């Protein structure tokens, strides 16, 4: 059973427009969510996170929204730039569990292409 799902394998947007990447989860024990960005031939790098006590977190052009009742989060990028073209992974963690050891469950990723 896949606990974190990114249902769109790919997304293409025009430069300057908004990119919206979606993520759904099933485990109600998840209380911390992260987005990572990955360029080809590089490891993923942390982008933005949100705790379950919040419903929004913003960092520059990047905003993450969390809807706990729907078990859904989304990453908004405004405005999108060609350099944002990458694979975006959603990850979820149950920090309240003392055996967690910093473990996260990752989605399959969404490949974003921003066209000039």
């Amino acid at each position, binding site marked *: 059973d896949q606990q974190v799902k990114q249902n769109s394998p790919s997304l293409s947007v025009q430069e300057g427009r908004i990119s919206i990447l979606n993520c759904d989860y099933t485990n109600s024990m998840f209380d911390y969510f*992260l987005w990572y960005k990955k360029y080809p031939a590089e*490891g993923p790098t942390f982008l933005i996170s949100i705790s379950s006590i919040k419903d929004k977190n913003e960092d520059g052009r990047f905003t993450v929204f969390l809807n706990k009742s729907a078990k859904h989060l989304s990453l908004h990028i405004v405005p999108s730039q060609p350099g944002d073209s990458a694979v975006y992974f959603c990850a979820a*963690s149950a*920090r309240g569990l003392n055996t967690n050891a910093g473990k*996260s469950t*990752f989605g399959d990723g969404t490949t974003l292409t921003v066209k000039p």
Partner: protein
Amino acid sequence: DVKVTQSSRYLVKRTGEKVFLECVQDMDHENMFWYRQDPGLGLRLIYFSYDVKMKEKGDIPEGYSVSREKKERFSLILESASTNQTSMYLCASSWTGALQYFGAGTRLSVL
């Protein structure tokens, strides 16, 4: 800056060979992780370790083992490499929180 270094960027091995993938982190992190990334399958956790000499199986441990003799080093071992282990392998480390720092990855081809 946190640095997670994977010893090889590219490896080509033969079926049946024993393969060692090494990972070193320089931030005194407690936790270390090994993932594989395959197209359409995202990041799948192979093994993780929350302390020296401690290890726990992830989601896909079959065919792999790990070693953590020192805090900064976490090794992934393929006892007898098979073609279905051709993949991108990613090492990560973290402190007590969920934020993980990743290495650049090792692309392993098993022929």
